Every structure is written in C-alpha cells, then in structure tokens.
C-alpha cells in the first residue's frame, strides 16, 4: 500500500512538474534545442519593448526579443533570437515600434535605405551606428501616445484657426466674398470675350500677314523680273542716260526746295509780325471796348458826344454873334 502510494504520488508530482515547466516554456516561446541566430541592436531608448516581443523582417515574424540590457555607457542592448535561415538586409537597422494600439511592441529589421525619413529616427540610427561595432543601429519610433499628443496639438491649432476664421468671416465678409466671386465671374467672362476678340484679331492679322507675305513674294518675283530686264537694259546705256536726267532733275528739285525753304522762312516772319499786330490791335480794341483810355471813353461815354455837340452849337452861335456885332468883341485902336 505504501509503495503504491509512493508510486502514484511520484508519478503525479513528476507529471505535474514536467507539465508546468513545459507549459511555461511553451508560453514564453523558449528556445529548446532548435538552432537560432542571435542579433544584437543598440538603442538609446527602447520605449515599451519587452522580452518576448516579436521580431519582424519584411512583415514576417522571424523571431523574438530575448533580452534587454542597460549598458553602463548608457546604451540599451537588445538581443534578438531569429530563425536560423533568416537572411538579413544588406545594411540592416532595427526599429522598435508599436504594432497595435494596445501596447504591443515589435522590432523590425530593415535595410537602412528603407528606414523612415524622419530626422529624429535618422539621428538615432546615426548615433547608434557611430557608437561602435558588434551591434546593429537601432531607433525607436514614436509611440501612439506621442502621436496622439501631436495630433492633439494639431487639433488645438486647427480649432484656434477655425475660431479666428469664424471671427473674421462674418456676414459682411460673406457678402463681400460673394460679390468678389461674382466680380471674378464677370471678369473671367470679360477676359473670355476679350480673348475671343483678340483671337479673331490675331486670326485676321494672321491672314493679313499671310496675304502680305504672298504680296511680298509676288513683289519679289516682279523685282526679280525687273532686275532681269534692268540687267538686259544696261548694255545699251539707257540707264546712264536716265541717271543723268535724274541727277539734273534732282538738282532742280534741290534748288526749288531751297527757294521754298527761304520763302517759308520769310512767310514765317511775316506771319509772326502779323500775329503781333493782331495781338496789339486786339488789345487796343479790347481797351476801347472796355472804356479804357480817351478813345474808349469817347467811344463808350455818350455825354462826351453830347457835350461836344453842345459846344459846337455854342461856338456856332458865338461866331454868328461876333459877325453880327464885331465891335462888341473887337476893338481896334491905333495909337
């Protein structure tokens, strides 16, 4: 009975221990016997990455993180166990990032050229790569919390901008904007019309130019024919005679032109004098008309005429009186 108890208890204890240990190893994905390849990467910060997180190459899970160690130099070394037959990229780097929104992280091994073109990531990779050999350069991507914080700031900025737009864009602004749009529509119609007219003008101009070119061509052909004829005429001396006649005519025209230029100059002086006389006459007549000066007074004041007329009448009466009574007015004594 006692031996039976010992056997059963021993069996249960051994079975339980083996089962529990195997369970723990299976859950922790422990590596027992199978060949694994170890890769070490160096990071300034590993975020929330933990032992057991997946290692992904080109989107395929190829291993897991075996250990995370903090070095005395300040770097964090992450050891990854990869499947033995996994081939790494030519210039491998390791990026730690969240694989979902629920706090899972993963390590992604990729080629350096495929790394995100982010200044912070590139700086981390450069610093990690410059820290020494024996470990792949590593960088940590921003986690969801950081991204949402940035998104929150952007949303806040957008909200402020929206508020300002709402303040600036009141009813009046809307009316003005509507008017501007209408004006712009009118302007575009006008432009369209102008362009159409200009296009027609250009078409006309183009056809004119075409005709002109045609005429020029015809003229050139005529000129060519004329030149041919001239060329045939030069052999008889007619051209020389014509040129002599033309020279004579030209000299006559030149002399005539000279005389005309002199006459023109004389005529110009006469015209200036006449203008001056007319100006003075106009001035005198203006003064007379305005009653300035003696002549103006005489012209414009009727009393002067009346006084003169009265004076002449009185003088006529005086002469008649003197004729009638000379002794009254003349007394001649001799001695």
């Amino acid at each position, binding site marked *: 009975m*006692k031996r039976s*108890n*010992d056997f*059963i*208890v021993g069996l*249960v*204890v051994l079975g*339980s*221990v083996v*089962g*529990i240990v195997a*369970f*723990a190893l299976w*859950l*922790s*994905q422990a590596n027992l016997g199978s060949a694994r390849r170890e890769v070490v990467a160096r990071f300034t910060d590993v975020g929330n990455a*933990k032992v*057991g997180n997946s290692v992904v190459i080109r989107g395929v899970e190829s291993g897991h993180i075996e250990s995370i160690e903090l070095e005395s130099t300040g770097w964090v070394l992450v050891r990854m166990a990869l499947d033995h037959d996994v081939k790494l990229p030519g210039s491998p780097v390791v990026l730690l990032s969240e694989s*979902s929104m*629920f706090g*899972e992280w993963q390590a992604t091994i990729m080629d350096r050229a495929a790394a995100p073109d982010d200044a912070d990531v590139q700086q981390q990779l450069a610093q990690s790569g410059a820290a020494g050999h024996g470990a792949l350069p590593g960088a940590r991507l921003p986690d969801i919390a950081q991204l949402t914080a940035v998104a929150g700031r952007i949303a806040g900025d957008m909200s402020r901008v929206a508020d300002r737009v709402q303040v600036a864009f009141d009813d009046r602004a809307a009316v003005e904007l509507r008017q501007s749009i209408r004006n712009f529509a009118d302007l575009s119609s006008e432009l369209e019309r102008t362009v159409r007219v200009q296009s027609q003008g250009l078409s006309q101009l183009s056809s004119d130019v075409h005709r002109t070119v045609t005429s020029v061509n015809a003229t050139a052909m005529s000129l060519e024919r004329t030149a041919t004829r001239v060329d045939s005429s030069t052999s008889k001396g007619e051209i020389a005679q014509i040129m002599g006649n033309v020279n004579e005519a030209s000299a006559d025209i030149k002399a005539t032109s000279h005389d005309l230029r002199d006459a023109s100059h004389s005529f110009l002086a006469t015209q200036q004098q006449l203008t001056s006389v007319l100006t003075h006459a106009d001035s005198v007549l203006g003064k007379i008309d305005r009653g300035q000066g003696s002549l103006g007074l005489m012209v414009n004041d009727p009393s002067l005429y009346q006084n003169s007329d009265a004076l002449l009448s009185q003088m006529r009466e005086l002469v008649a009186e003197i004729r009638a009574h000379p002794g009254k007015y003349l007394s001649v004594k001799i001695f």
Partner: protein
Amino acid sequence: MAIAQIRSVIEATGRWVRFRLEEVGRAGRFLGQLARALTDVRTWGPMATLQMRTLGVDSLPIGLLIAVFTGIVLALLASYSFTGAVPLYFVGTLVEKTTTLELAPVLTGLALAGRVGASIAAELGTMRVTEQIDALETLAYDPEAYLIVPRVVAGTVMFPLIVGVAMVVGLGAGWVASLGLLGLSSEEFLKGARLFYENFDITYGLVKAASFGFAVTVIGSYQGLQAEGGAEGVGHAATQAVVYSAVMILVLDAFWAMTWLHGRSG
C-alpha cells in the same frame, strides 16, 4: 442593579479578550510545536506520501474540473467584454493572465479548503474526542510530528502542483472554447496568450498556492486538535476549519497582491 449590569458587560468584554488572547497563544504554541516537529523527519516522512496522495492526488479531479469550467467561462466573458472594442485575440491574454495569476490558485484553493480542510479537521477531531491522540502521547508518539506535519507538508507541496495543472488545463479549456465557441484561430489565441506572458505569472500563482496549502492544512489540523464534546464538536471543528481556511485564502491572496504584485510593472 445598573451597576451589576455594567459590571457584567465589562466582565464579558474582558473574557472575550482573554479567550482571543488564549486562542492566539494556543495557535502560537501550535505553530511552535509544528516547527519543532518538522525536524522529526523519521516520524513524519513515512506518513507524507499517504497524505500527499489523500490530500493531493485525490484532489486533482476537483481541481481540474474547476479549471475546465473556469477557462471556458473566462473565454466567453472576455469575448463578451471585448466585443467591438478590443481585438478578440486578447481573449488569450485575459485567460492566461487571470488563470495563472488569480483564478487557478484561488478557486482551486477554495475548493480544496472545503475538501482538505474539512477532512483534516474531522479526522483529527475524531481522534481527539476519542482520545486516540492522548493514546499516541501515552505511547511517546509526537502527535504533531506523526499527525500534523505530514498533512501540512503534503498540503504545501501538493497544492501548487494541483494549481499548476489547473493552470494548464484552464488555459487549454479557454483555448478550446475560443476555437469552438468564439471562432478564434489557434494562432490568434496563442498570440494573445503569449503577448504579455511572463514566467512570473506562473511563479506567483504557484507560490500563492503553496501558501494556501500551508494555511488550509494548518487551520484544519488546529481546528481538529481543538475539537471537544463528541460528534458535535467534530462537526463544529470541520465547519470552523472550512470557514477560516476560506477566509485565510482570501486574506493571503490580498497579502501577496499587496506585497508582491503591487508596484510591479509588467
């Protein structure tokens, strides 16, 4: 008259305090005798395997039954809670964490408290009221080394094993339930189960189970040795053993959570 009543109240209070202190003293003396008897390996050693089979191996079925239903219920509960909000592969995470950290140790411990604690208390109580323990003392046997230590050792050793197997079976039941009832694939369930798994989870659960086993067997033995007054006293001792064991399991659960789990980051 009033003075006499006040005096009786004060006396009752003093008597209650004295009883409690005496009980603490007896418990302390019992633990001291237990520690002393632990060194008497030649006495308790041969009896240990019998107790390990009685308390441990024979308790496996009830532990596994609890684990199976716990795993199934956890998977369904997680699925119900996560619907539309959290990816379903987290069912594996919840089943793994809750099974290893809490439910397997506590539920198995409570079940064994009823079975083992009552059994020990009734057996030792019967021996006490029938003066078999007195007879052992007369024959120069150390009752602690002969009766108590094998049970305490068996409980402390076998409880973690039963709980460990319950963890495995519980996770397996949750896995099967996820495949059959929730439509999860094995890859998804295992991804969730492994996502936040740490060896600490199992260690924590097993250490808790060992403390539960120690508490249940000590309380059962103490209550059995304190039994008096015949069959009624034995029944009372068994009831007290189950009640105190269940309470002590919950107290220890909180103790370990506060001292070991609290402040620990994944």
